[in-house]
């Protein structure tokens, strides 16, 4: 009797151990991410984690971003733009249904857009919808959107996760039980642990390659490394421990995906606060900074140097890094010229991400080289938003601006870094009214040069998108043109 018990016990332990490793049926994918979404309604919060889980997987908009950042048709299969650029007529796909079985029609589009721009809207990007004058239902599959003024970036704006189409029937439960039109439907959420989604068998487009997927929330970098190494998870999007990437790269079980994000990481400078109101001081700081040292020291070599507020992978990007090359000698003489031969002291307020905390120490040392002393304060995001972003109580801060195509923030003199240049504001107004691609490109290039020449902020690097996956996982996005983990094209290699 006794030996039998032992054998059974041992067998069950072995089965348990084996079960851990073989849990991944090939139609399933477990993907790690660092932050858990607070809820699952992308139309009423800014948290990037919401988009990571829901964008394209659960919810879709009229247009959508491709892996390269291009704007492609989404729920609208085509559109016509009136000659004056004000009226967009969207033609919706036929036969699209929401996960609860109700059909998508023009009324849902009108409802979604009106809800986002309505008076009691809690949309975090309400500005995207500000130009809309009216939304009209022409017939069940046609919607006409009239803008107050022509807006060259309207189709781009409609691709954001904040502009997805939702149905009035299910809108009240989106936060906990999201109902969209995407290739996956929401299945389960074990708060603090994971979210499960399953393939939508009634999907209108190309069906997903995976039967199901699990988003697993692992915030600690060491734990992320361990979970990947132990093969508890199949992939990790936005891997938080760049120092471990070479180890994964060298391991045949894994592959490392290094791409670009829309995050311009900048030494944000309070342009309204002396001495930063003097362009010579800002120029001196720009030359005091050694970008490569920051990328190597804070990001373990991952990141592309930038010389202006624009993504290097964008076709209209101009490389202006030479204009603020590392030159401490020049920096010191510029400071002397500006009346600060002995430098000055200012504040450097750092939000939690490691690019800021690690980068901040390095920048402080580089600024000290030329005589600028910084008092470093570490802030939580909530404090950073209150003190720096809203209160404008700072000298310097380091932050990554992750919104795509956000050079327009320099047109607002009230924005937290308080850059006030009427010529730039005018250029942005003109850009908005321009829909001719060639002219738009020219304007965007000009805009990059203006802010680089004014040394508005210290332009450091474009944040890299770092992912690790098992070798067999294919179709994961390398770049992150928006904060999405689009699993619709992901599958396992045979």
């Amino acid at each position, binding site marked *: 009797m006794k030996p039998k018990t032992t054998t059974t016990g041992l067998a069950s332990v072995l089965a*348990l151990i084996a079960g851990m490793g073989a849990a991944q049926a090939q139609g399933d994918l477990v993907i790690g991410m660092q932050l858990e979404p607070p809820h699952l309604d992308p139309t009423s919060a800014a948290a990037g984690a919401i988009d990571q889980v829901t964008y394209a997987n659960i919810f879709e908009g009229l247009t959508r971003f491709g892996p390269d950042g291009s704007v492609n048709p989404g729920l609208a299969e085509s559109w016509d733009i009136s000659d004056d650029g004000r009226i967009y007529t969207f033609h919706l796909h036929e036969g699209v249904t929401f996960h609860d079985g109700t059909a998508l029609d023009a009324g849902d589009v009108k409802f979604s857009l009106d809800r986002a721009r309505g008076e009691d809207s809690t949309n975090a990007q309400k500005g995207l919808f500000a130009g809309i004058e009216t939304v009209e239902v022409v017939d069940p599959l046609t919607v006409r959107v009239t803008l107050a003024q022509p807006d060259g970036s309207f189709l781009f704006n409609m691709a954001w996760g904040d502009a997805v189409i939702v149905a009035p029937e299910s809108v009240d439960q989106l936060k906990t039980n999201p109902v969209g039109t995407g290739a996956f439907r929401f299945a389960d959420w074990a708060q603090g642990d994971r979210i499960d989604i399953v393939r939508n068998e009634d999907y209108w487009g190309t069906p997903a390659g995976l039967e199901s997927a699990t988003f697993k929330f692992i915030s600690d970098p060491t734990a992320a490394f361990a979970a990947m190494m132990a093969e508890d998870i199949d992939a990790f999007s936005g891997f938080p421990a760049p120092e471990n990437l070479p180890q994964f790269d060298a391991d045949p079980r894994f592959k490392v995906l290094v791409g670009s994000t829309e995050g311009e990481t900048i030494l944000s400078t309070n342009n309204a606060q002396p001495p930063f109101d003097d362009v010579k001081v800002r120029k001196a700081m720009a030359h005091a900074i050694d970008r490569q040292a920051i990328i190597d020291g804070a990001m373990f070599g991952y990141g592309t140097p930038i010389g202006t507020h624009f993504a290097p992978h964008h076709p209209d990007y101009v490389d202006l890094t030479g204009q603020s090359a590392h030159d401490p000698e020049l920096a010191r003489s510029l400071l002397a010229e500006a009346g600060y031969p002995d430098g000055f002291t200012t504040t450097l307020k750092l939000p939690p991400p490691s690019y800021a905390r690690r980068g901040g120490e390095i920048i402080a040392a580089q600024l000290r080289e030329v005589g600028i002393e910084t008092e470093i304060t570490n802030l939580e995001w909530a404090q950073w*938003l209150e003190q720096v972003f809203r209160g404008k109580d700072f000298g310097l801060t380091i932050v990554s601006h992750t919104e795509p195509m956000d050079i327009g923030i320099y047109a607002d003199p009230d924005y937290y870094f308080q850059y006030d240049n009427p010529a730039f504001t005018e250029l942005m107004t003109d850009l908005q009214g321009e829909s001719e691609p060639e002219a738009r490109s020219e304007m965007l290039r000009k805009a990059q040069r203006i802010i680089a020449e004014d040394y508005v902020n210290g332009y450091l690097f474009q944040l890299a998108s770092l992912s690790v996956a098992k070798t067999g996982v294919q179709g994961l996005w390398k770049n992150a043109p928006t904060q999405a983990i689009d699993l619709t094209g992901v599958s396992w290699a045979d």
Partner: protein
Amino acid sequence: MLRYMVKKLLSLAVSLVVASAVIFLALEVVPGDPAANMLGINAQEETLAALREELGLDRGPVARYADWVGGMLVGDFGTSYTYRTPVSEMIADRVVVSLPLALYALALSTLVAIPAGIWAAARRGSGVDLGVMGLTQLGVAIPNFWFAMLMVLIFAINLRWFSAGGFAGWDAGVGPAMHSLTLPAVALALPQAAILTRVMRSALLDTLGEDFIRTARAKGLTRGQTLWRHALRNALIPVLTIIGLQFSFLIAGAIIIENVFFLPGLGRLVFQAISARDLIVVESVVMLLVFAVIMVNFVVDLTYAAVDPRLRRSR
């Protein structure tokens, strides 16, 4: 006994009232607006106002405090700002991880520490005593998160006996669930066991030096008999105190271990809620933890009385 209990209950109630006021005030002065935090940097002023109204943040602190305490008295912990689900449900989801983990760790540490402490005390000055004391020194000195990482490296990454973290869930069965709590429980138990062993040993040695032990020995009892019948019972009071404190610590203090093993427990909930400025969740969970700690102390007080009859009569 009744007077003793009434007195303890009264102090329990006062502690709870004071704690609720302190928690609420502390979170009132923490900088950071929950609405601004949720809507991010592109939010417009009117959108923020709409959200504040929706969350009830536009009302004064006194009204919100009254609501919160009033709700808790009838078992309503409010609704989370960010998750938008009832806080009581969220707590219930997390307690089923944190409580078993704490009990598991406590069981491990007690099962190891009490025999080890008795053994070391009984063989005072011997090689056993030195060995046990050396190990406890090490157990106290090693930070438990580091020990946790080491165990993950050995048992999850190299040997693959356990997963590196996460919780299988009770739906998967008791076996897999306990399996996924094992490494965290061992990591939590290590320093506790070390401390408890030392307390057990020294308490027992103190008692063994008392007059009544000499009397018992003089009456002809063997060393072993005096130890088991007389000394152990008297040495248990300080040990119980420590176990009570440790249990409170294990429930409330597992934040780091929960992060290392990415377990969806109470500690991680508080951690997330603080950075998201989900004040109602922080307030309610902290209040619950305070309640748990006070209750554990209350139970420990009652156990003293059970172990030591003098306490029942004199106070």
